[in-house]
């Protein structure tokens, strides 16, 4: 019963994510595409919750759905007016892209189904340890350089796989600062807009 509920929840979220993603890919109106993408990203957050990655699901909802999408919608409102909402490409280009993407999808599906261990449920000896553990503090500790879930094992101090992500964390922090400054520098108005583009 629990397995059936899990499968039904997965089918719901996976169907939403894939359906909205296909709607984004095939959509013609750029504003509607942005809102389809919100649906798809929200459904992906549901998939994260289902996989036990609770913190990541929350981050997905907060940063992606709440932050990045608002940013994209603002960019949409600032750049795309009138005829640019429904720009189209030619039929042959569309067909070429469809054929290439179909081949890519076939390759990826074949790869996903080709490894035996990925199509079997995990070994029953490990289902006992597969309980939902709150991983937020472990993630935070790993970001500052301590792998709490591996210290408890048989590893000696400084062993491979025991180091956290402190350096990557620092690099990402500096990167975000540089991106903020760069975005503010790039987006500043260089010359006044032509008068016809101003709202009357």
């Amino acid at each position, binding site marked *: 019963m629990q*397995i059936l509920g899990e499968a039904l929840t*997965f089918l719901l979220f*996976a169907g939403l*994510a*894939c359906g909205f*993603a*296909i709607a*984004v*890919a095939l959509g013609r109106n750029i504003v509607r*595409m942005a809102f389809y993408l919100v649906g*798809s*990203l929200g459904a*992906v957050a549901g*998939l*994260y919750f*289902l*996989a036990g*990655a609770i913190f*990541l699901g929350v981050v997905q909802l907060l*940063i*992606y759905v709440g932050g*990045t999408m608002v*940013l*994209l919608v603002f*960019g949409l409102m*600032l*750049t*795309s007016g009138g005829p*640019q*909402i429904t*720009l*189209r*490409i030619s039929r042959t280009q569309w067909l070429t892209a469809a054929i290439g*993407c179909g081949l*890519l*999808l076939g390759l*990826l*599906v074949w*790869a996903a*189904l080709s*490894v035996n261990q*990925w199509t*079997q*449920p*995990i*070994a029953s000896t*490990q289902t006992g*340890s597969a309980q939902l553990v709150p*991983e937020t503090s472990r*993630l935070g500790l*790993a*970001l500052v350089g301590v*792998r709490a*879930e591996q210290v408890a094992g048989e590893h000696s101090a400084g062993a491979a796989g025991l180091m956290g992500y402190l350096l990557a964390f620092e690099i*990402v922090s500096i990167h975000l600062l540089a*991106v*903020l400054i760069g975005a503010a520098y*790039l*987006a500043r108005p*260089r010359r006044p807009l032509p008068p016809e583009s101003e709202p009357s």
Partner: protein
Amino acid sequence: MVGLLGSLHVSHYLLVGAVLFVCGVFCMATKRNVIGVLLGIELVLNGANINLVAFGSPMLAAGADGFLGLDGQLMAIFVIVLAAAEAAIALAIALNYYNLHATADVDQADELKG
């Protein structure tokens, strides 16, 4: 073959990730609006993230080949942060481009053509 109503496997998540990835690639290839291309990039990054989460989930992949443990979620967090940074800088470029050309059509950005 993956049964749809059995217990969940890594392959289920990989298939969803594959569909999102391909939809994103198709979106990037066929949209002419700058923002449309950006939407495709977000879809591609999400498809990759789903794979990372699936391989890092103790409920789906424990003991299997390529089990990532907590590393999967950590990498996914870095991907999300970098995606946010990329969206911010790409939107700044798009705004700049729109200010210079008064259009959002990527096909008209061809001044650097040799």
